[in-house]
């Protein structure tokens, strides 16, 4: 962060500190002692970490352990609960409804996440460029949809999608088209639009914030060197975005794989069975648990989904994030 501190370090290691750097030297000797005693664990961090960890264990870890536990059982209306080993997992492997739902969210992720992140990054660059009239207005209006509860935003979009009474109808009347965005073939795109609308601002803000950490001296230096605007974007701004890309990609992948609110609310508005009870893995889990009395099977599904999600998130981005975390 500060060049002075960094330069203090070689001074210490070289044992050539001047009197002005003495305090840093002492300080660093302290930390050096701490480093030397690395084999003796430093537990101080837990003094600050434990409240988060405790609540996290309570809200996530225990339920996950319990989910793993019940995934080895089967509960029947007739016959009660019995241990079945890996039966639920074996059944899941050949459950076509499950795999079709996984395929659907995978497709959704591959298409929607890049579009959303591209829009978010483009908007962040535009706002950061200071070339817009009314920067503040654009910043707030892009972020505002994030404030709308998913229930409400799906209701609003659901109305607008209506081919009979919604805006789509008005559009069709106006242009003589015969558009219907609620038919199964384009429904996933329609859902993707809702999700994009909801979260583009959230991601924009993360990108934008990372752009604002770029020191201005860098821009000045670049322009003195005669770099064009585009070159600055390419060689200064985009590399900066890469860092925040890791976290947004991971959160977006997890979010898409857990797609639930939007399709389940739309289910009641979409004609026919365009949205089945196994449209997404999360909807399938919901129906297994709450309409089907099959919590054990749903638990197995959850574990498998977690493994799949993690594997993908890891493959895509976790590595670069680990670097960032040291």
């Amino acid at each position, binding site marked *: 962060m500060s060049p002075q501190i960094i330069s203090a370090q070689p001074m210490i290691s070289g044992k050539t500190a001047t009197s002005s750097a003495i305090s840093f030297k002492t300080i660093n000797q302290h930390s050096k002692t701490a480093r030397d005693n690395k084999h003796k664990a430093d537990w101080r961090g837990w003094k600050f970490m434990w409240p988060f960890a405790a609540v996290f264990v309570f809200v996530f870890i225990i339920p996950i352990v319990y989910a793993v536990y019940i995934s080895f059982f089967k509960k029947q209306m007739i016959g009660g609960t019995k241990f079945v080993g890996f039966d639920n997992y074996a059944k899941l492997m050949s459950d076509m409804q499950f795999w079709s739902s996984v395929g659907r969210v995978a497709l959704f992720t591959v298409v929607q996440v890049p579009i959303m992140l591209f829009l978010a990054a483009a908007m962040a660059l535009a706002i950061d460029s200071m070339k817009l009239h009314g920067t503040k207005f654009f910043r707030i209006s892009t972020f505002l949809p994030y404030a709308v509860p998913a229930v409400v935003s799906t209701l609003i979009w659901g109305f607008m999608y209506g081919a009979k009474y919604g805006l789509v109808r008005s559009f069709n009347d106006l242009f003589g088209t015969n558009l219907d965005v609620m038919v199964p073939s384009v429904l996933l795109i329609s859902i993707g639009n809702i999700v994009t609308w909801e979260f583009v601002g959230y991601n924009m803000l993360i990108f934008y914030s990372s752009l604002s950490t770029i020191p201005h001296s860098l821009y000045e230096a670049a322009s003195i060197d005669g770099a064009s605007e585009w070159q600055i974007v390419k060689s200064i701004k985009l590399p900066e975005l890469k860092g925040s890309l890791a976290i947004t990609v991971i959160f977006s992948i997890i979010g898409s794989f857990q797609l639930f609110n939007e399709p389940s609310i739309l289910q009641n508005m979409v004609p026919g069975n365009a949205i089945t009870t196994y449209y997404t893995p999360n909807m399938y889990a919901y129906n297994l648990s709450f309409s089907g009395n099959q*919590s054990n099977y749903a638990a197995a599904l959850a574990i498998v989904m977690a493994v799949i999600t993690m594997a993908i998130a890891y493959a895509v981005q976790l590595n670069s994030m680990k670097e960032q975390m040291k």
Partner: protein
Amino acid sequence: MRNAKKAVAAMAAITTLVGLAACGNSSTAKVDTDTANAKGEIVFWGWGNGIKETIDAFEKANPNITVKYSSTGTAADTATALQNAIAAGKGAPDVIMLEDATVPQFVVDGSVIDLSQFGADKFADDFAAGPWAKMLQEGKPYALPIDSSPEVFFYNKATFDKAGVDGESIKTWDDYYEAAKKVRALGGDYYITNSIDYQPFLAQAWQAGAQPFKVDGENITINMNDKGLQQYVAFQQKLIDEDLINPKITNWSDDWYRSLGDGTTATLSIGAWMPTDLETGAAAGKGNWRVAQLPQWTDGEEASSEDGGSSLAITAQSKNTAAAYKFAEFLTHGDGAKVMADHGTFPATKKLLEDPSFQSEKNEYFGRQEVNKVLAEAAERKVSKFQYLPYNSFAQSKYGDDVVPAFQGKTTLKDALAKYAKTLADYGTDQGYTVSNQ
């Protein structure tokens, strides 16, 4: 070291909690039937209109009992919540409102109690036949009906006038078919009705004399192809093939209400609880709607059936069953039933149904028609034997997956029902039932 101990302690805590959660068997409290001395607080989960007012009346009449009411959303939400409380072994209310069709699944796992302990069986003749029949499991009442819900026929007179159809002359399903063609001839979005939902589907099959489910303890027979269903399916298929049913509108959606309001969906065959939904959801249709008896398969018959309907049950977890029963009895059979009826519930007791002032009430929404008279007549008609599956929630959720594609023309109704029957049979087998799928 200290931290290692902490870690051990944490693990121990986790294990204990998991253990706690694992032994989630419902603790059955002792059933107290001494209703005369009932007192204390009871918790009640339900939905709908007039509940608050009924509770006020109850607490006034029974100052020793307080009712804590929570509106728990839709019937499905309420059933889910009860299921969760059962799994947790605690947290269930004392009195719960259930959709009639879901009562059997809670009887099977012992979550609701037999009300004949309180003498509810003597009400058999006080309630209309249709709703009462649904309360009985193995001959014993496990719930008390809040409303009767005979399947009736609602039609939009304005649309019919435009199409040249006389609503009053529709007596049979053949008449209905002719009317459907005339309505469709209006063009645009005009249809006789929209694609059919789970509940109305069962109700209309029931009216045709179908018995898709037969449940005898652990044995279930599923038959989606008996005589009644064959008749019903052939008729529906004809409507679908000739584009007489709107496949693009689904029940309970905004579009549905709008189409009922503007008359493009011209008729509904649905339960007698529908007037309130119409009045508020399709306010624009005021004055245009009428109600009549369901068309018959053979002219002159008086076959009826039940669609939906709700009832009150007492949970096995209740620690104050006496007060719980007292309240359930009050709301369904006692003075509370009148309060409920005044707030739009279509009553289940014969006394209220036959009340002349109730029957002669003129309804503005229905062009001052004496709606209650028609509905009451339907409620008191005889119904054939019909059973719901002990896993009704599952059956309801899968109906959309398997059957609805037939209304979209993606498959025939017959094939769709065969697929549906297989889904239901497989599930039953998986749940430990002995299922025969015919």
